Structure formats: structure tokens, C-alpha cells
């Protein structure tokens, strides 16, 4: 289901729904009127694309030339590859079997041109049409098989030309005059008379370097050395372009077809080869399941998946300028070593609740956020906030007077100055039960120490016996 032209519409239906008469494009309201219990899922086009890309990745094993045709089609150029699988039929069977096992429903066909293959896959599942036989094979298919635009398709239907054969029997100039050369080309393409190269998928890295080995390599030393030399090549390319990598991927192609990919991310654009190599090494060392070289790798590839401009910097003379950078490198190293989820930094969080006003998140992703603070006046929130507010016994005037005296950690404090209350109500929608509001006071005791404590519960409105807590200390 997705929002199309301001109405929620079905974008896809499963077999059961289709049998009950639902179809894509139907407004959700209509579908619901028919089936109130209908289960719908919001369409997630990026996820669909991602899944298709995953399948395409997986298809890499059959041919390097895989093109994604969203929403639901893959084109594989199997020229010269079929024999590796024992011919076209075994290859098709294998693809079908393996994908079916993974739970995908598919229709597949092999033909001499992409357009013909598309037509057969849609309208004659499992067809394997040898080159030259397309024209005869495609003729009985409905013209929809040509994948023309809706208007043209409709025009043919209206003219009584309802199969590909009927259309292709018309004179070419007759067709060109009405539908343009493009349509005629599409027809010829589908008939196997014209060729159009498929455009392979582009997961191609922005920059990449690779090393092929005549003999599969096994030893770790060689792998490291290779990585280092690849890093140097990559680095020099990046330098020429004035760019650095934010994400790098090393792919290890095993001789038996398995591919391992290892990705590292950096918090700033990077191109120093030794750092690259070091980060990969950290990562490789940290792998819970070390790479199994098996019979060895015959190809190692290093690519900068995401590159961005990096400002050329003169290495500064004062250490301060490098401080930030050093921290970043440290963060990268630690993250590569221990995982990015374990190196954390505090970020401000948009809420009134004091203990939730900040969150810890992976330092690599942390923004250099500015903490909101009043410079002119004393800070409203203490620098030190207790992880858990500590109960305090306090004497205060009802309903909302400040504490006059309180006992905390067995010591008695006499309040000299107090300001408040700052009343903070809890986020009611997060809690099961009613949460009492807090009245915070900033107080100073007779020794000049400043505390932040609160009364829990508004007197009479929420409770008759408010409790007191110490929540933090000002420096």
C-alpha cells in the first residue's frame, strides 16, 4: 500500500488477495470495503530495490553482467556463461531452483535479446528461445509483451492488433508513421532483429583497485601486503582528485565463487594508505569468524564506495589544530577494533525530561552538536546529574515552597538560597500509569554548595505526600 495521487492504493497483492479480486492500483478504501480484515503493509520502495539489488548480487555468480529493472525484474547477460553451468536449460533450472528455495516466486526465460527475454519471462515462463527463433516464438504473445507504453498498447488493441504477430505483420513504415521509430525499434528488438546492450548494475565503487592472482593466495601476509599495495594505488587516485573515502570495501573473491566483503567507515574523508590498511587490519583481526581462505583467493578488490572532497590541509604547526583530527583517528581505530557501537559520545536530545536530555550514540556518527546553554546567567541544569535521583528528606512549605532544610546522605543541609520551582511534567504517553510532575529547585546551602533537587508530585492535585529527591549538583 502506498500513497498515490493523494489516495492510499494497493501497490502489490499476494496470490490469495488476487484470488479474492484485489489488484494493484485499487484504492485501499475500496479494498477495505470488500475485505475489512485485509492486512496491508506499507510499501517500502527502497527496501524493494534493496532486495532486488541483493538478488542481483547473488546472481553475480552466473554472470557479471546483471542489470536491475525495478520493480521486479533482473536481466542477466549469459552470453558465454551458460556452458559453465552445463548449458542454458540447466542454468535456468538452477537459477529457478535456487531462488525458489529462498522463497521467491519467479518467471524466467532465455532469449537472444533482452526485450525478447523479457517478453517470454512475462508471457511464456521457462521459454528458452534460441537466437533467430524469437520472431516465430513471440508472434502469438499478446502485444503487452512488447512492453510498450500504455497508450501505444491501447492503440494496437483498439485497432484489433492484439498479438505481437499481428503487429509485426504490418508494414514498418505504417507503424513508424503512427508510433515513431522508437516503437519499431522496440519491436525489432523483441523479434531478435536488433540488439541493445543491457546496462549492468552500478554498484561499481567510485574508485577501485584490484589485484588478480594467477595462483590463489592463502597466507595472511600476502593478503595484508596486497591490501596495502591496493590502498596505495587507491590513495594516489584519490589524491589526484582531491577526494577521500568515507566508506571503503575490500572484496575477497574465493576461487570457489564465494565472495567476502568487508566494509569500514571513517568519520572523516580518508586516504592515507597506512591508515586504511591499519583499519582493515583491525577489522580483520576483530572478525569473530575469521576469513576462511579455503582454496585461496584469486581476486582481491579494494574500493572507495563513498568518496567525498577532502580539504587539503597543511599539517599545522600547532598541536591544537590536529587535536580534533587525532580524536577522530582514535575514534576510527577504536571503532574498527571494538565495533562502532561501543565507542560512544553524548548528543543532546530534544525533551524536557532532565535525565533524557542527552543520549549516547556511536561516536563515529555523532555530530558536533552545540549544547544549549545560557552564558549570561547561572546554568539552569547542573553539570553533574545523578544516574538515579536519590531520596532526600526535606522540610518545605506546601503547596510548592522550596526546601528549607534537607537531609541527604545522612548530612543535614540548611538552605540559604533557593530558586524555583521549575515544573516538569512527565511524558505521559510513554508510561503505563500516571506519572507525577516534578518541581525542581536550585538551592544553596549554608556552606555554599549548590544542589538540584525536586519535589515529586504536585500537592493536592497529584499527591498529598510529595517526596523529595536529589537529582544533581552544580559545580
Amino acid at each position, binding site marked *: *500500500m502506498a500513497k498515490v495521487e493523494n489516495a*492510499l492504493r494497493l501497490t502489490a*497483492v499476494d496470490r490469495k488477495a*488476487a484470488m*479474492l*479480486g484485489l*489488484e*494493484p*492500483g485499487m484504492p*485501499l478504501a*475500496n479494498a*477495505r*470495503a*470488500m*475485505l*475489512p*480484515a485485509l492486512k496491508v503493509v*506499507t510499501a517500502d520502495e527502497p527496501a524493494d530495490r534493496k532486495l532486488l539489488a541483493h538478488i542481483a548480487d547473488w546472481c553475480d555468480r552466473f554472470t557479471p553482467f546483471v542489470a536491475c529493472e525495478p520493480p521486479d525484474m533482473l536481466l542477466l547477460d549469459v552470453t558465454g556463461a551458460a556452458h559453465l553451468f552445463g548449458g542454458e536449460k540447466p542454468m535456468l533450472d538452477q537459477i529457478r531452483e535456487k531462488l525458489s528455495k529462498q522463497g521467491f516466486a519467479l518467471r524466467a526465460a532465455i532469449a537472444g535479446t533482452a526485450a525478447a527475454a523479457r517478453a517470454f519471462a*512475462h*508471457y511464456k515462463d521457462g521459454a528458452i528461445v534460441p537466437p533467430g527463433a524469437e520472431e516465430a516464438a513471440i508472434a*502469438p504473445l*499478446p502485444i*503487452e509483451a512488447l512492453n510498450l507504453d*500504455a*497508450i501505444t*498498447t*491501447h*492503440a494496437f*488493441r*483498439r*485497432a*484489433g*492488433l*492484439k*498479438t505481437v504477430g*499481428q503487429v509485426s*505483420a*504490418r508494414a514498418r513504415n*505504417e507503424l513508424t*508513421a*503512427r508510433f515513431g521509430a522508437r516503437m519499431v525499434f522496440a519491436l525489432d528488438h523483441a523479434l531478435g532483429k536488433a540488439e541493445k546492450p543491457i546496462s549492468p548494475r552500478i554498484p561499481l565503487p567510485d574508485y577501485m583497485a584490484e589485484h588478480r592472482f594467477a595462483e590463489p593466495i592463502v597466507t595472511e601476509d600476502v593478503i595484508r601486503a596486497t591490501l596495502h599495495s591496493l590502498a596505495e594505488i587507491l590513495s594516489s587516485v584519490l589524491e589526484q582528485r582531491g577526494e577521500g573515502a568515507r566508506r571503503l570495501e575490500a572484496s575477497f573473491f574465493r576461487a570457489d565463487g564465494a565472495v567476502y566483503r568487508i566494509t569500514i567507515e571513517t568519520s572523516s574523508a580518508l586516504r592515507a594508505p597506512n591508515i586504511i590498511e591499519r583499519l582493515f587490519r583491525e577489522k580483520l583481526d576483530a572478525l569473530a569468524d575469521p576469513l576462511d581462505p579455503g582454496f585461496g583467493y584469486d581476486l582481491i578488490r579494494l574500493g572507495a564506495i563513498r568518496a567525498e572532497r577532502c580539504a587539503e590541509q597543511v599539517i599545522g604547526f600547532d598541536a591544537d589544530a590536529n587535536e580534533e583530527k587525532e580524536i577522530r583517528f582514535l575514534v576510527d581505530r577504536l571503532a574498527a577494533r571494538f565495533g562502532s557501537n561501543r565507542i560512544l559520545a553524548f548528543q543532546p536530545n*530534544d*525533551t*524536557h525530561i532532565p535525565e533524557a536530555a542527552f543520549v549516547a550514540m556511536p561516536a563515529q556518527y555523532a555530530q558536533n552538536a552545540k549544547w544549549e546553554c*545560557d552564558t549570561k*546567567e547561572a546554568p*539552569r541544569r547542573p553539570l553533574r546529574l545523578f544516574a538515579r535521583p536519590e531520596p532526600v528528606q526535606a522540610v518545605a512549605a506546601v503547596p510548592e515552597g522550596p526546601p528549607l532544610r534537607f537531609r541527604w546522605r545522612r548530612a543535614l543541609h540548611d538552605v540559604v538560597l533557593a*530558586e*524555583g*520551582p*521549575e*515544573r*516538569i*511534567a512527565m511524558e*505521559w*504517553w510513554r508510561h503505563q500509569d500516571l506519572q507525577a*510532575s516534578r*518541581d*525542581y529547585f536550585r538551592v544553596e546551602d549554608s556552606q555554599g554548595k549548590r544542589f538540584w533537587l525536586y519535589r515529586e508530585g504536585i500537592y493536592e*492535585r497529584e499527591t498529598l505526600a510529595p517526596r523529595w529527591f536529589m537529582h544533581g549538583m552544580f559545580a
Partner: protein
Amino acid sequence: MSAYAELAITTNYSFLRGASHPQEFALAAQLSGLKAIGIADRNTLAGVVRAYSALQELEGEKPKLLVGARLVFADGTPDILAYPADRAAYGRLCRLLSKGKARAAKGECILYLSDLLEWQQGLLLIVMPPSPRIMADEIFKKAWNNAASFAELETGAKAADIEPFLKQLSQTAPGRVWLGCSMPYRGDDKRCLRKWQRIARKTNVLLIATNDVLYHSPERRELQDVVTCIREHVTLNDAGKRLEANAERHLKSPEEMAELFRDAPQAIAETIRFADRIGFSLDQLKYNYPDEPVPKGTTAQAHLEYLAWAGAAERYGDVIPHKVRALLEKELALIGKMEIAPYFLTVNDIVSFARSKNILCQGRGSAANSAVCYVLGITAVDPTEIDLLFERFVSQERKEPPDIDVDFEHERREEVIQNIYERYGHHRAALTATVICYRPRSAVREVGKVFGLTEDVTAALVSGVWGSWGSKLSESEIRQGKLDPFNQLIARVVKAANELMGFPRHLSQHVGGFVLTRDRLDEIVPIGPATMEDRYFIEWDKDDVDALGMMKVDVLALGMLTCIRKAFDLMRVHSGVPMDLASVPREDPVVYDMLCKADAIGVFQVESRAQMNMLPRLAPRKFYDLVIEVAIVRPGPIQGDMVHPYLRRRSGIEKVVYPSPSPQHGPANELRDVLQKTMGVPLFQEQAMKLAIVAAKFTAEEANGLRRAMATFRNVGTIDSFREKLVGGMVARGYERDFAERCFKQIEGFGSYGFPESHAASFAHLVYVSAWIKKHYPAAFACALLNAQPMGFYAPAEIVRDAREHDVEVRHVDVNFSHWDNTLESRSDGALALRLGFRQIDGFSENWAAALLAARGNRYDAVDDVARRARLPKRALIILAEADSFQSISMDRREILWAVRRLADDDALPLFAAQYVEEQLPETIAALPVMPLSEHVLADYRMLRLSLRAHLMQFLRDLFRSENVKSCEEIGNAPDGVRAFCAGIVLTRQMPGDAGVVFITLSDETSVANVVVWPRLVETFRREIMGARLLLVEGKVQRSPEGVVHLVAERIFDRTEELERLSEDHNNDAPSFRSQARHPRNVRVVPKSRDFH
């Protein structure tokens, strides 16, 4: 005890900011003993009348209402609460807001400080600074850059400070500027207060206490958070500091406020002094009628009397019937007493304009109770035919101005409206507003979003709610959506949604309620532009306008009037018969014969399924029967189960008796007067009201309250007390409980759609006129009906089919004969044929039609000829060809289409277009396959939504015959009780009221069949009922004594795929894929059915 007045109240008319109704504030203020409340919504006065009305109804000591607005500026000036001190200043405030509205898009109001300075005379101004912390930021700098009007300000002043601003403002408005401050529990409240005190002292401005209130009680904090999220388009989890930190911005008692401001008691005292300075109240809005319609040298009353007697002479000739004369004298006297003659004159003025432009119009509603309206020609209900109850229309006790609604032709109403603007000016005439409120669906959807529910869950949550009204969401309705009402999240959503229901969401223009004044209207209420160009509407809705006793005329649109006028025009041109609404011959028996046979497609009001079923049963033979016919098939009588008793009595099966109280409580025939006309069964709205008075001893005022509660009961929910009073009252006086309950149910049913007798009579008049035309001029009627589309119940296909069944020849659209509109053509035998116009073709534009006509000359000979001479774009030619409109040139649709596609595209440069020449070489092409008839029909349906060739079902007849399926005609002739199958295209689906019964009309090549599906079955076959275009129904034939035949469904099958198969080639064995992307035109094999809920 300290006295306090809250001056900064934001109600929910500051949309999505305030979280309480104005009424709630009024009540809460009284309870906590506030001296006054100031309603100050964001740049609007929309909520003040609500508060005013609520306070009127309160008893005991009540707070004074201060009417004001919170001026929110677009230039960064801090918010200012503006309260007019007197009537003149109020007018200026209205002008100020109108100015801001005119500047902005609909619903917005853009104000600059300069506007305030222009209109500030007499306004008391409370500057509401943002918190000092925020203020230190950008805000003031922006204000300063824009404050050009403060010429004397040192431009260089980096005024990140409020002081110079206050100084300047108080120099401009001396003694009328205050600094508002509040104690929001921010922790540093006292520090801030001291700062404000200092600033106030330095700038010589007085400090005044407020609580900057957003809701009337702290419990509303949750709803306040929810509306904030709706406004900011965020979920609660993401809202963060956009929400208030606590629940303190509620209406506080004087004690609480005094405690909060104990360091500044003078700020509290100042609120009382402030309130005392305000001498304006809404009572002072003296409404006055426009005086345009009154000629110089005479009074309104005299002029009205003159017009009334002149009109009477015209209606009745020299001898005015005694009854009419008496009525007129009585009415005119009452009008004179109430001084409402100008109102009648104004409406008459509008109606006369329409009449002068030959625009049909007719008054409806209770105005039809007035003989004066009749003789003025405003209404069409003849007092000699119907007993008029003028008291129903104008009553001295009610003290309300009368309400006249007039219907105009829907296509020409705009002319009337523009004339009103022209005559009275935009500053004196404007539409009333309609307050669009949250309803169950919208409330749940929005609240669900705020809680992070997906649209799917919210859709499920409201799936149990029928229609858009209905009171709060109940547990059972939630369960219907397969959700657990005790799940906390769901419960919270439901709670918030239930609270949000009835909250105003935005203001919209009323469909036609005009307010006209003699003085400037924009000094009575702010006026703003509507989305529609050249439309303006005020900020108050009709209840507000009523509450203030302002005059309102409803200028409504009615499709049937358009149809009738078009039919009159055609009759004049083609048959030489001049005719108008008044001159249609009365009581023509053949018209009643036709109606008795339920031959009523296209006839006003009685063409619906329910009405068509009723016609043979009621068998109308005179005008008053039509009045009853119109009134009886309404939710009121149906819900009150009054229909069958009436029919039984009418047909003589049941004796006419009058329900009676026990003897000690009153005479047995006390209801005779009330119910005599309708054989002892209450059918009309006023009968039900009268019943409440006579049988349940309501006072007139209570009955009126009941009526009003009904009209709005879903908003308020005071209905239960009335129920108790009515049913209890009647039972106590000895009436049967069952009868009392039914009466109440009926009144409930009237609530939203009640017809008083006078209104039914007005409509019955149109029923009769349209039936008369249909009977005597079927071709003109069908033609007019098609040209007036969209209107009525039936699609063009049914109208055309009906016309053909009445022996009207219908001719296909043709480039050589058609016009944009459908037209009539003379046949050689003298009869008239209906020629379909280009407007019937989907997607064809009126401009194309004009070009085609302009270049047509004698005729077009070839497709090229059309292309060359009419210079239509290729797309238009393709549409024409698809619609088979070249029949006079070639009969071969495919050949034409194929040829049209060959024409050059439209991108020829103008230079070349001027010398458009045939550049293409002639081509010889092989013949295209012959188009089968079924495909022709399908193509007709796609392009025209109808086919003159055949009915689709015809092609499936063999198939269905083999399945032993009967045709609709056979069903119609089948005896009672027979079990049968019937299949047809779904024409309409109706689910009247909330009974759960679904009526389906099926159509095939023979006739139509009426299918009834009982609620139990509706659930079982819901998918088929709601989704199918072609239905196969198995059921039992039910034939009533009057010959009304229904097929009561037992099993239902969706056979839509048969239609899809039709569109495939017969010999095509390629698989068809339902899910293949298809052109929208292809998807709609047959036009969608028309559904009515």
C-alpha cells in the same frame, strides 16, 4: 478574596493551539469565580460568539466577556492582545483582521505592526513578550527591521530589548498599553517577574497578570500535547520541547493567581481595572437591514405591503381568495410588529434579479409557510392548497429573525451571488462560515499519526464507524476493527480522539448563507477571502449569526432547477411551448399514472430506489400525496417505523386511530389536530414537535430546544435528557411506550434530514413539474437532464436507456451533427430525436467542441478535413475517433482510428501550422481485423459511459442462459416466492441509514432488477457486494401486492471477470494477466456504479 480576570485565553478556535472549547472556558470561569474572561484567539474572533452564547445560557453571577484577539504578527513583533474599549474600536479591530486576511491565503492572516498602528484607536493593548530568554534572540531584531512605521525610532538601535518598543507603543497609544506577564513555572519565574517590573517602571507601562491560558483544566494537557503534535506534524515521541513542559497553562482561580503573583499584587488588581475599562459587548452589534430594496419616500413595511398585494393580484387575479387575504393580513401585521419587512424585501430583491435573468429559483424550507413569500414569488406553495403555518416560520416568542432559503439553478447560482456582491458590495455582503470540525475519522487518523500508529491501524480503528458523523468511538466499534480497546495505546488514541471530536479544524465558507447589512459588515465581523476566487466569508457560522440576530439568506444551488430550465428552453425552441414553473398545468392525471408505475427515472426526489419502491404503494393521485411521498421516505419516518402504519391506513387495511393519553390526562383526541392530515401517523418534522408539546407537554421553548438539539445533537449530546422528557412525559400521560419510543426515534431521524411539511411541499412542486415534463416531453427532459449532469441518482447510461424506452430516438455523437451540449433534432415523422453532445465524451474539452463547431460549415468530409479545418490537437481527434464520432464520414471505427493516429503530431511550429498541408503520401494498407460488436460496446462504454449499440450483458446471455440465469425482465415478471438466479451490471448500491441493508440495482439488456441484501448476508458477501461490477445473485423473488418486485439475495457471486474476458479477443489463447499495468481507460471496463450511503 482577591478578584482576577483572565485576559489571555486561547481557545480551540486558535486552531490546534488551544485545547478547550470557548463554552468550556465560560463555564470554568464562572465556577472558579473569575470577574471577567478575555477570549483572545490568534488573529480571529471566530470563537467569541460561542463563549457569548454559552455565558447567556449560564445562570447566576457570570464573568464579563471581553472580546478581543491575540494579534500575531508576521514581522516578529511580539504577540499583542487587543481588546476594543468600545463599539467603534471593535469595528477597527474587525477591519484590522479583515485586512490581514485579505493579504493572506485562505484561513491565514498576515499582520504587520504597521496595520496595528493604523487601527489602534480605542484598542487596549497587552504586549505579550516571549520569555526573556528567547527574546534575547533574533525575534526583536526582525521586528525592528520591519518597523518602518515607527519612523521616530532610532534606526541604529540594536534593540534586542523590549524597552524602546514599549516606549514607542505607549506614545502611540497613550494609557492603552500593558505589559502582560505570566508565571509559567520555568524555574526563574521570579527573576523574570522582577525584570518585567523593572521594564514596566522604566517604560511607564503597567504590568498586568495573565496565565496565557491554553485550556480550561489541567487534565487537558494531554490533548494540548496532541494538538501541538498535529500542528507541528510530529509524533509525541519526536515532539520534544515543542510541547509545554508542564500542565500549568490552564484557567486558574483568583486565589491561585494571587498566590503566584504575591510579589506583584498590583498586576492582579490591574486585570480588574482593565476589564472595567472595556465598554464593548457583543450585544451592541446592532444589526440593520440593507435599505437598497426600499424606494425613497416610503417605508419598508409599506413597500412590502404594496408588493404583496400586487403579487397577490397577479397570482389570483382580481378576486383574492378569502383565505389568502386573511393570511396575508395576519402575516403582514406580524411582520410589521417584528420590523422584519426589510428582510422580505431583500430576499425579494435577490429573487427578482434571478427572475429578470431568467434563472429559475424557488424558496424551500420553512419560508414556504408564508403566504407573503408565495405572493412575492419567492416560494411556490399555494396557501389555498396547503395549510400554511406562518408561526412556524416567524414566531414572536422565538425572537429570531426568519430564515429564507432559496434554491437557484446550480449552473447559474454564481450569477446571483455576483449580483449580490455588486449590489451590496464586498464590505456589506459575505457568506457565513462553516466550522469544519474533527469527526471520528479525521480525529482518529490525526491522533493515530501523533501516537505513531500507521495509517493502516487507524484505518482499522475507524472501519467500524459508519458515515462521517456519529458520536464518540465506542468499544464495540473498536472491536469491529479487530483491535483491543483495552490496549493502552489504543485506549489513549481513542480517548484523545474522542476529546478532539467536535474541535474546530478550520473555517470554510458556507454553501450559500449570505449575510447582508446596511452598515459595513467588516466592522461587525472580520471578513476573509475564500479559496474560490471572489468569495468572501465572515468568521462566524450560522448559529453565531443567529445568536446575534443577524439576517441571513441561503442562496442554494439545485441541479433540478437547471434541468427544468433547460427543458423549458428546449420545449420553447423545438415545440413552441413557452412554460415556466407556475404555468405547468396542475393535477394532470397522466402524470400521476406515470408516477404510480414508478416510472420516475430523472424525476426530482422520487427517483431513488426507496422512493421508486414507495411510489406504487403510495399511489399518488394528487399534489398532497406527493408532499407525503417526499416526506415519508426519509430517515425520520423510517427510523420511527411510521411508514408501514401510514401505508396500511392509506390502503384501508388499518383503521385511522389517534394515539391517546389516559382519560384523566386529557381528551382522547388531543392529537387529532396534529395528525389528521397524515392519518394519525406523524410524518413531518413539525408534527413531531407539535406532538412533543401536546402529548409530552413540552413548552414551546422546550420543543424548540429539542429541535435545535436534534439539528446539532451529534455535536453536543444533550439528547438523553430530551429523550427522558419526551418518552417519560408521554408514558406518564398514558401513551403507549412503544408509540412514544417510535416518536422519539423519528425525531432523532429528523435531526439531520428532517423535512417539515412546507419544505416537502416545495420539493413536491418540483417533483410534479419534472414528472410533467418527463411525461409530455420525454426527449426534452432526457436532453435537459443530460445537460445538467452531474445531478440526480442515475448515470447518463440509465437516462439514455430510459429515454429510449419512452420511444425517444437517441443518436450517437457525431462530428457533423453534435454540439457540446446534447441537442434535439427533428425527425421526418415530426418527433424529436436526442443527439448526444460532445460533453458526453470522457476527456473531450469544451474548447475543442467550440473549434469543431466553428469550422464545421456545411460538414466535414474526411478525418483530414476535420484535422485541417478545426485545427484540433491530435489527442482530441483520437478521442473523437475512439468515441466513434466520425460515423457520418465512415462507419469503420478501426480504420478511422488507424488513420487518425497517422496524423502529424501537434508540435508543428506556428509558421508551418498556418500553411497546414497534407504532406504524407497516401498509403495503402492491409485491412485491419473487423471489430466485433462486443468490442464496439466496450469502447463506447469507455468513452461515453454508455452504448447505443447493445448492452454488455447481451454478449454474456448465452453463457448465463446455460447457467439457468434469468434476465432482469424475467425476474420482474416472476411470481412471488420463486427462487431464481439473476445477473447484471451493478448500477447503484445504496445503504440507507445505518440499518445495514444494502440495495443493489442490476441492469441487463432487458431491464433492471432490484436486489435486497439483508445485513447478515452483507457481511458474508461484503467483498462481492462492494467490489464487483458484474454480479450474479441467487435469491427469492418477493412481489408486493402493488407489483413491486425484489430479489432477496441468498448467495452472491462476483462475475466481473466475464466482462474482462469480453474485452479479450475470442481466439486469443495467450494468458491474460490481471496485474499487468493497464491504461486507466482499460481498467474501467464499465463505468463505476453510483453508490449512496
